[in-house]
């Protein structure tokens, strides 16, 4: 009975029209699936080949194994290169975040002579091709008779990380409601307390984001590092040099691990942020 009514009330739509209507309704979803597939196939490939029982060269699938994950330092030099990258990344992040945050406050909050010039200059390292920046830094170090190595690399990384920190933190400062600091001052907090209790906690997510950005920029930098690190091997340098004779599967393990670590940090940040919003 009900079936009959259904047939009677819904007019027949030709199949072609129905398909085009379905596409119309789901176009954005289809597009999203295509875009994410495009973005994540390389990541999935890297992850999959971290389980390859590869031996020396990790180009062809030879069989599944956990060995690479059980022994990530198995390939020669891979872990010392990783340790160097982490050390350089940590120091570059620390210095560039501190300096960049201070610059962001100066430019974002105060008016002084040369403010707009500084604002422009801070973008220059971002706009300069890395190959030029790397080469000129090397010649600068050599002029001052500083041999390429660990510290020159850290200094070089701070140079290009600062720009990104300033831009990120400045955006956060710009979105800060000035009335919040006025309210703190109104409620008996002097300049120092206002900064510590209100300004800094509110800008902190921006600073944390800037630090993560700086670390990931430093961690995977190859061009500038290649000029300034001398004989020191960082993780990107290791991957590059071993490409000639076959990249070990351990590189895929470390790459995948970094990816999941970054993912975990982002998800944790989201959850914490959402919880705060709910409790506020």
């Amino acid at each position: 009975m009900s079936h009959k009514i259904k047939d009677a009330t819904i007019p027949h739509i030709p199949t072609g029209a129905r398909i085009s209507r379905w596409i119309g309704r789901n176009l954005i979803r289809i597009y999203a699936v295509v875009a994410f597939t495009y973005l994540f196939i390389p990541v999935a490939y890297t992850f999959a080949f971290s389980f390859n029982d590869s031996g020396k060269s990790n180009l062809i699938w030879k069989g599944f194994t956990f060995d690479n994950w059980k022994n990530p330092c198995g390939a020669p030099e891979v872990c010392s290169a990783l340790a160097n990258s982490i050390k350089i990344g940590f120091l570059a992040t620390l210095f560039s975040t501190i300096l960049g945050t201070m610059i962001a406050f100066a430019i974002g909050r105060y008016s002084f002579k040369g403010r707009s010039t500084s604002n422009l200059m801070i973008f220059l390292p971002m706009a300069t091709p890395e190959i030029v920046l790397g080469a000129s830094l090397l010649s600068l170090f050599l002029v001052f008779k500083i041999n390429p190595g660990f510290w020159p690399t850290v200094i070089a990384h701070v140079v290009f990380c600062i720009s990104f920190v300033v831009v990120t933190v400045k955006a956060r400062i710009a979105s800060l409601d000035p009335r919040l600091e006025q309210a703190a001052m109104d409620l008996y907090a002097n300049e120092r307390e206002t900064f510590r209790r209100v300004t800094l906690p509110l800008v902190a997510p921006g600073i944390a984001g800037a630090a993560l950005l700086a670390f990931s920029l430093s961690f995977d930098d190859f061009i500038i590092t290649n000029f300034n690190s001398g004989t020191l091997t960082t993780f990107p340098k290791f991957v590059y040099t071993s490409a000639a004779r076959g990249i070990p599967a351990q590189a895929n393990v470390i790459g995948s691990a970094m990816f999941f670590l970054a993912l975990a940090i982002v998800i944790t940040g989201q959850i914490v942020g959402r919880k705060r919003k709910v409790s506020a």
Partner: protein
Amino acid sequence: MTKESISAKGDLRLTRLSKSYGDFTAVDDLSLVIPEGSFFALLGPSGCGKTTTLRMIAGLEEPTVGSIHLGTTDITTTKPYQRPINTVFQNYALFPHLTIFENIAFGLRRRGIKDVDAAVSKVLDLVELPHLAARAIVNRPALLLLDEPLGALDLKLRRQMQIELKWIQKEVGLTFVHVTHDQEEAMTMADTIAVMNEGQIEQMGSPADLYDNPKTAFVANFLGQSNLIKGTISGNDGDSHIVDLFGQKISLQKNRSHANDQFIYAGIRPEKFRISRLGTPTSGNILTGGHIEDVSYIGVSTQYQVEMPWGQELMVFEQNDDGVAPFSKGEEVNISWEPIFTFGLRGDEDATAGSEVNPEELDEE
């Protein structure tokens, strides 16, 4: 960095206060005394300097010229955190990274007060909507500043909060200075209102004073609505002037006239008018020859537009309480009112001052 806060109390005195931003003068030579314990309102349209005045009292702006005294202490150049003054900000400016409790406790903790828990729970008992004013009131300041805190609320809640705030002010006995562009809000809450326009005080007084006897066209139009009729003083009768309005004579008490020569605007509030049909006995001031141009029935009253022989439309609000059949459009009528309700304004004023609706303020409503 000096941190000791001033423990001054007493009347707030603003003396010849000015604040300029480049060529623009936001506050212009303003002098004012706000008595201790009063509920004081600074009322005016946006851009009149009321918020700048408030921010100078709070210490968030430094005056270009002039001084601010709290009791006998000069606080003109002291930092905001040194003043025993707290502000309820527009949209409250709550610290988003702190809980409601920590927001309220913020001022107490900065001053190193021991029993924070007790003070916070006490103020929460007092204040119904905690985020509204608790963070400021908990500090028991000598002066509480309110920067249009009710602007974002809907009408019903706003009325409720007005009564609440008024009650709190009586309860805690603090001096409240309230900035608003909403004349009804100012009249509901404040003991004294200063009407501000272009950086200066137009008139100051109790809500009833300002409404019944405005001194300028701006006050007459900004506080409620007024009918302003151009005329000349043609004679005297004891304590009253005889005023000629387009050939018809009415009387105006001399002490309610703020004109400085014979050219005058006679002002009458719309609800003071009575409309009568031709031939009905009337007393007091009478204007004849009107006819009803428009009728709007709005429940508590009926609003009429009455066109007079000289072309001006007068606004009349009639209570719907006397059983008289409402007048209909086109009817010939006379208008009358008690002479004591007439007020006189200078004849060289702009009769529309203060009556234009600022589109920005409509958005805020």
